[in-house]
């Protein structure tokens, strides 16, 4: 008994030493360590990009960069940074989570203009995953509201993907204006419209409110994260359709076999823009701003854009997007900026305490 206790203590000490070890070596001479705090599905994407960046940066400057990654639910990750996790950069699922870090004073306002394309180096959208052969004939948003269809989607209070899904259904039902973002003209028009938009009639759309209220009546399990929702649908076999990030649907197909599921694109959906930002207070303290800037700039390079396409995210670079158009077909998408006036406003109306989502689930007793 006593001996086993010593063994356990030994293991714990060894594990702690391993965990602390790499952190201690940071910035000795020409070595720099960056911490990228990201959301759940990007684990594989960033580990591929980080290798490329390390190589490219070493060739250019001679500095050895190690990029460490941390992944988890988008809001939980933002909270960790607010609570003192020393992230040099954040690459999160929803703009509202970076806004929360800004509000805590760690990121300076205006971060969305410091990198191109709303500070989102890639985009994604919300689509459907159905059982092979689409037995319930789920083609578009209105099919999700049929009484014989069970929908799997995560809780928008805790999951970024679920927040995008909620807005996608709302905007599509409200008839938000869409663009083909695979063309330069469509892209330019959508950005201009987003900047020019003044009032947002979508918020007052009664049909959209009715649609989301109805949708959540068909949700048998409300997982806390997007990966959990995928597991509930794909592994536990619950529900007829999964509502999630496009990239997550492809991952589910890769993981559980393409012969089990089909991806269905609705007629219109939302342009999902997961944003990136430098955490000003951390890079100023660690003196890593130049590397952090180079790292996020690198996400827009051809090499990184190609990796982004490989992992089923939609590259911003139109040529690269075209290269992957067989898997990522051109879609009619609407933007949060034009339809909802940005994330701060959408978050407050829909998902804040007492917001529309809370109203939907108000117990009637």
């Amino acid at each position: 008994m006593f001996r086993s206790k010593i063994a356990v203590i030994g293991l714990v000490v060894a594990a702690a030493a391993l965990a602390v070890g790499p952190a201690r070596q940071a910035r000795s001479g020409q070595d720099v360590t960056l911490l990228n705090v990201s959301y759940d599905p990007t684990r594989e994407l960033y580990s591929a990009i980080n290798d490329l960046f390390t190589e490219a940066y070493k060739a250019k400057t001679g500095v050895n960069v190690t990029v460490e990654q941390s992944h988890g639910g988008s809001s939980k990750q933002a909270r960790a940074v607010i609570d003192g996790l020393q992230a040099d950069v954040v690459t999160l699922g929803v703009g509202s989570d970076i806004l929360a870090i800004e509000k805590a004073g760690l990121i300076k306002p205006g971060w969305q203009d410091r990198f191109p394309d709303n500070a989102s180096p890639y985009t994604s959208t919300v689509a459907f995953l159905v059982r092979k052969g689409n037995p319930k004939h789920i083609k578009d948003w209105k099919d999700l509201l049929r009484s014989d269809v069970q929908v799997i989607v995560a809780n928008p209070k805790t999951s970024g993907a679920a927040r995008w899904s909620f807005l996608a259904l709302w905007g599509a039902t409200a008839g938000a204006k869409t663009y083909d973002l695979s063309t330069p003209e469509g892209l330019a028009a959508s950005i201009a419209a987003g900047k020019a938009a003044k009032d947002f009639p979508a918020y007052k759309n009664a049909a959209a409110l009715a649609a989301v209220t109805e949708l959540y009546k068909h949700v048998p399990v409300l997982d806390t994260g997007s990966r959990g929702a995928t597991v509930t649908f794909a592994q536990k076999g619950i529900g007829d359709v999964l509502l999630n990030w496009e990239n997550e649907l492809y991952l589910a197909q890769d993981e559980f076999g393409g012969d089990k599921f089909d991806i269905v694109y609705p007629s219109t959906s939302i342009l999902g823009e997961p944003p990136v930002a430098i955490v000003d207070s951390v890079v100023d303290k660690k003196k890593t701003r130049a590397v952090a800037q180079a790292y996020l700039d690198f996400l827009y390079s051809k090499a990184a854009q190609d990796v982004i396409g490989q992992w089923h995210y939609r590259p911003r670079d139109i040529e690269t997007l075209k290269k992957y158009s067989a898997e990522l077909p051109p879609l009619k998408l609407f933007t949060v900026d034009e339809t909802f006036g940005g994330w701060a406003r959408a978050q407050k109306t829909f998902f804040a305490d007492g917001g529309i989502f809370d109203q939907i689930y108000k117990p009637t007793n």
Partner: protein
Amino acid sequence: MGRATPVIPGFSLTLGYTLFYLSLFVLIPLAGLVFKTTQLTWGEFWHTITDPVVVAAFRLTFGASALAALINGICGLMVAWVLVREPFPGRKLFDALIDFPFALPTAVAGIAFSTLYIGSGWIGGFGDHLVSGTNWVAARLGHPDFIPSGALSFLDFPLSNTNAGIVVVLIFVGLPFVVRTVQPVLQEWDLEQEQAAESLGANGWTTFRRVIFPEIFPAWLSGMTLAFARAIGEYGSVIFIASNIPGKSQIVPLQIVTKLDEFQYSEATAIGVVLLFASLLILLAINGIEVWARRREQVA
């Protein structure tokens, strides 16, 4: 003062150490919790904890925990009894297995249980599996469709994503407490008392009820209390098996995590403080019953 000579010398040292230790690991974190909550006004505090979704979560957490503790109380007592009094092959192994829920990460337990209890799982679809298995064998023997499909569906227990499933995992995490508190008392138990009761004409049930049970009652009650307290705070296993629908199947710890994800720290701690004080009151009440029972026993 006629205080007995202490076994371990250095009273002030040990007292100081105890206080330091308690402060570091219990009092300071709790004070921090209460302090954070004071950033809310009374109105906000009241609004947070009386939100119907939060109230429903309290009802579910306390209800499911109490039910699980009661079931553990009955079944755990039987397990302890069998392990102490009925020698059977493999008893040592079973005895060791009792501690399993202590060691297993609860998330692993949650995933295992939710997979077992889904409609197509081993237990969730037990009747259906039994039918298809029997029919498979029967078909080999030339009797296809020996049992009509669905005939044994009353043996299906699809508890995943139901509140009954929550109780199942809470029973799992609480099982060792009752067994491990009752077991030593039963082991120390003097068989002569039972023989005396028997010689005075008491039957088995009366002996158990009047002689044995009062003896193990305090330990049994504290075992149940521990199981109950453990269940209230359980998060990892429950979120995997619950359907987590607000107002219906969200436990209090999930409410707290949800508030944190909305960056509402004070609201999250407010719910935590209520959970804490409610648990404290319940524990004190049960402690009171225990003390009363011990005293009654000494008088009797």
